[in-house]
């Protein structure tokens, strides 16, 4: 791992509980590069949470060393160490008798920041996680929804701007729809804050979606494979990893690509003020089945197809179907595919930040990107195999 600076290095880390023959974690050595999300994933009881909690020494290791930015922190004062490491747990653990503002201000308070700086930081963080500071600062945790609590949990972990964040199944106890939204929000946030994040989950799909790198762990926190998600999907190290990934590696691979990474399909469009004849003409020139009507800001307003044009002489804007399945460039292809399948026009509309039409994702787009991923993975394995051979012969 020469390409990136190492933020956390675990050396032969071990945890043995008294009275147990098998260690919970044995001889784990792992390097976590700066600014990346590293996912520890594995079956229940594999020691992934124990491993995570040894990094901030909520669980004290019985052997090995922990290096943070090159410093050996294995014996450092744990309270001071933890103030440098953000910590998010599944149960969130917001303090119910403190307001949202007080919850977030806690660590800066421990670090003796002055009051105005703390207040500024609280507002800044609430903004960052998309919650209006004026509205939420004075509220108590019980007045928030699960998703909002999770956001506050993240804001609290970021309060003292720690370089490292540890997250233990942070989205585990949240309904699937909110979880998906929070995951996307978090990835967007990470693009801004560029923290080094160690993230534990048992859900391989979440691992693939969230991780820059994934460590698949088996019993006693032994690493089965530690690599980028696309390599794990295309090139599982052994049958354990293969079983753990499960079926549908191609579909899972769609989680790795975002709409902005692929060439969008071209569907015909017309201004909503166009005449019937102009729309029919646009349809005829295209091999797609429907035309998308756009308003002056190029926002999608209506799908019309040939049948709905023939059937009535109502104004254009009252025929056809309302636009469905609208996605943004940051959406994963997997989510876009999902939206597409739900929509009646077999196509997901892509809009940019201002809501203007930018293109479409249809089944051809998806097929092409799956093909491209296969080719890339094959080329890479060949290149690696070639490198190995030259390495052997020298």
């Amino acid at each position, binding site marked *: 791992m020469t390409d990136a600076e190492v933020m956390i290095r675990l050396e032969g880390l071990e945890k043995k509980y008294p009275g147990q023959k098998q260690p919970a974690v044995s001889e784990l050595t792992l390097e976590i590069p700066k600014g990346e999300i590293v996912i520890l994933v594995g079956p229940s009881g594999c020691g992934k949470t124990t491993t995570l909690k040894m990094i901030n020494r909520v669980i004290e290791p019985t052997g090995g060393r922990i290096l943070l930015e090159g410093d050996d922190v294995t014996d450092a004062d744990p309270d001071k160490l*933890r103030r440098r490491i953000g910590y998010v*747990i599944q149960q969130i*653990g917001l303090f*119910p008798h403190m307001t949202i503002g007080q919850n977030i201000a806690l660590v800066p308070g421990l670090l003796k920041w002055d009051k105005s700086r703390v207040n500024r930081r609280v507002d800044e963080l609430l903004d960052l996680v998309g919650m209006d500071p004026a509205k939420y600062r004075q509220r108590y*945790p019980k007045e928030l929804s699960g998703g909002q609590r999770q956001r506050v949990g993240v804001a609290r972990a970021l309060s003292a701007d720690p370089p490292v964040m540890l997250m233990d199944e942070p989205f585990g106890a949240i309904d699937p729809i909110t979880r998906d939204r929070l995951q996307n929000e978090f990835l967007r946030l990470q693009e801004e804050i560029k923290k080094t994040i160690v993230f534990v989950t048992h859900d391989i799909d979440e691992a693939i979606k969230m991780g820059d790198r994934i460590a698949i762990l088996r019993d006693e926190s032994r690493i089965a494979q530690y690599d980028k998600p696309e390599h794990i999907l295309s090139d599982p190290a052994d049958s354990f990893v293969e079983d753990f990934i499960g079926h549908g590696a191609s579909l899972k691979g769609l989680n790795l690509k975002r709409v902005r990474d692929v060439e969008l399909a071209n569907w015909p469009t017309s201004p909503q003020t166009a005449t019937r004849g102009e729309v029919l003409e646009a349809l005829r020139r295209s091999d797609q089945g429907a035309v998308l009507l756009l308003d002056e800001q190029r926002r999608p307003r209506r799908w019309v197809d040939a049948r709905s044009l023939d059937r009535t002489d109502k104004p254009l804007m009252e025929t056809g179907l309302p636009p469905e399945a609208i996605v943004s460039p940051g959406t994963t292809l997997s989510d876009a595919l999902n939206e597409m399948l739900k929509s009646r026009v077999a196509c997901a509309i892509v809009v940019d930040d201002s809501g203007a039409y930018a293109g479409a994702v249809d089944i051809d787009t998806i097929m092409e990107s799956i093909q491209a991923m296969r080719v890339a993975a094959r080329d890479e394995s060949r290149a690696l195999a070639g490198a190995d051979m030259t390495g052997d012969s020298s």
Partner: protein
Amino acid sequence: MSMATPEPPSLQAASATVVPARWPGRVARYVTIPGLLALACLALYVYVSGQELDDIEARLLTQPRIVTAAIEHLQLTAMSTSLVILIAIPLGIMLTRPSTRRVTPLFLGLANAGQTVPSIGVLVLFALWFGIGFKYVIIALVAYAILPVLRNTMVGLEQVDPFILEAGRGMGMTKLGVLARLELPLAVPVILAGVRTALIINVGTATLATFVDGGGLGDIIQGGLTSNRPVVTLSGAVITAAFALLLDWVAGIAEDVLRPKGL
């Protein structure tokens, strides 16, 4: 006591709906009890004034006698309850630390024994052991009422969500910080319930202090009983009951005020 126990507010309800719905109920609760007690005392006053009191009755029911007895009773209750708080809460904190787990049953057993013996027995035992008078009554009251506060402190600390404590430790709070800023505030409602129970026990038991020369409102009841004057006994009983209910009312308000917001 159950009549004065506040309904726990629904955890799910949003604050916007809780506050307006709560206030009229709260105010009514705060006003009703003292109103009823004043009415009872007034009725007693009217009844006693309408009676022809003989010499002994008149001597036993003078205003200074009643006031002195009430003040003594208040002193007995307040001092014993304060001492109970000062002893039982720190003890409860100590006994819930991981390092003291082994001796916990011993202390709980002692406190249990203190409460299992009938209150008059504790009073008399302590009187035989130490002597009679105000000071020794206090010791006996403390011994008798320590259990509810000790047990509630321990239960209150142990019922705090362990994930909240893990979050606190994981964020870099010291053990003492976690205790002072998370554990104790979150245990306050349960601890206060214990203190309220101790207070009620002490108000009641202090009535028996008269048997070991400790003073208090028991003097009036006892005076009526020994001189065979039912009017005096009745007056003492009504005043004692009103006094106890009034203290419970104060304790109820204290619970409401001291409970941390957001719980």
